[in-house]
């Protein structure tokens, strides 16, 4: 019987994981249903838009700028191995708008926003502010989760669009300044090459990632255990789970959108 002990432990871990997946799925459904049903808290939604969208612009922009620049250098070096240096504008553009713009943008938002949502809601939980909301006849899912989830789902695609433009610009800057590309020709190549779906698919990914980020922030915040340690753990779990889920969702969406 003793030999079976590790199996038992594995079984328990799997069950725990399945339980957690179920709870997150129910939480997601509840959040979506609260987004769709009144009352709507416009003030909280507006604040969430500013926090999640507007204030994330600098970090998403800087990430995209440097990534676009580095990508141009790498593709130039790689392309040179088979005399294809000229593809830099096209490959930078497709790499940024399809993959790196949404994924890196999503990750930066996960770091910035999932953490702050989890810390804020977790603190509210351990200081009984969530209990206080309930006694004041206000549903915490509706008042706290719904505005943040909606704001992130709408704001992250916009951030991705900005990141796409800045990323392409990063590639352009490096291309023109370091790799002797003609500025106008670089841009023309980029624009002619990209198809609408290249960009749109990245924006759809952005919406999915925004949803994931806010959902994980709210979920872990609301399930924070007691004390400062509890909030710390909730914050960490929010960032880790949001990041991993972003990668997983990115693979699934890429498979759905582009698999031959």
């Amino acid at each position, binding site marked *: 019987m003793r030999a079976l002990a590790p199996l038992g432990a594995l079984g328990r871990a799997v069950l725990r994981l399945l339980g957690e997946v179920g709870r997150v799925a129910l939480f997601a459904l509840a959040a979506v249903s609260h987004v769709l049903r009144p*009352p709507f808290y416009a003030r909280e939604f507006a604040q969430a838009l500013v926090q999640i969208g507007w204030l994330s612009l600098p970090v998403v922009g800087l990430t995209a700028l440097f990534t676009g620049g580095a990508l141009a250098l790498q593709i130039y070096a790689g392309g040179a191995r088979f005399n294809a240096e000229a593809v830099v504008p096209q490959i930078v553009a497709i790499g940024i708008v399809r993959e790196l713009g949404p994924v890196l943008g999503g990750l930066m938002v996960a770091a910035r926003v999932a953490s702050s949502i989890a810390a804020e809601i977790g603190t509210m939980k351990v*200081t*009984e*502010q969530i*209990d206080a*909301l*309930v006694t*004041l*006849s*206000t549903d915490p899912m509706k008042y706290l989760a719904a505005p943040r989830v909606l704001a992130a789902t709408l704001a992250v695609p916009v951030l991705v669009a900005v990141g796409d433009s800045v990323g392409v610009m990063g590639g352009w800057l490096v291309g023109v300044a370091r790799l002797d590309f003609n500025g106008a020709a670089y841009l023309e190549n980029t624009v002619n090459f990209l198809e609408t779906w290249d960009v749109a698919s990245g924006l759809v990914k952005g919406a999915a990632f925004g949803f994931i980020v806010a959902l994980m922030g709210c979920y872990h915040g609301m399930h924070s255990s007691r004390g400062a340690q509890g909030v710390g753990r909730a914050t960490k779990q929010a960032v880790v789970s949001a990041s991993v889920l972003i990668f997983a969702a990115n693979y699934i969406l890429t498979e759905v959108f582009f698999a031959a």
Partner: protein
Amino acid sequence: MIELRGVTKAFGETRVLRGVDLSVPRGTSMVVIGASGTGKSVLLKCVLGLVAPDAGEITVDGRDVRAGDRDAFLARFGMLFQGAALFDSLPVWQNVAFRLLRGALKRPRAEAREIAVEKLRRVGLSPDVADAYPAELSGGMQKRVGLARAIAADPEIIFFDEPTTGLDPIMAGVIDDLIREIVTEMGATAVAITHDMGSVRQIADRVAMLHDGVIKWTGPVDALDASGDPYVEQFIHGRADGPIAAVR
């Protein structure tokens, strides 16, 4: 009328409530006393449905608290939390007027603010604090803002979790008077938790002593000194030795 019958609640291994029976008649003020960590706060949260009891039944005016319309039920209550539990993202007046700014009791903003300022005055806070944020206030001031929020919508039933802990004696007296006034003038039903025997005598109609997860003694406040109950005796005289262990 609030009635608890055989209410039990455990957190993991810790059995906090082990069969609490208590009734609070309408329009009276009940004070619950008992050592720290005996589950007084948990008891109030069970009534409000914030904590789900493991067994037992809790009714308000004969209706089970977990059945029926939660919003309508909660609209009858005001609650002062032990740690005040103010929303730190909102200025003080919006905390106090929270119920009046949204939902069924919604009023125009200016009117809600006026009511908030008036309630703040009743708990001894000047209108200047209305626009401050909770983090800018001292603990005692936060407590009083929490009290103002609890009474803002003139509830029928009010729970006070340690309303005077952390206040200076003068302010504690003001708050005790206020609680008494709310019960006698507004006819509210009140349940207060306190460790301060001065407060107990000031605000209680009846007293209940919680220990070991059960109500050890309950009776009118006048009978407190002649209770003959060793737990109550030890508690009200603050003795280190007696049936209540000093190390818990």
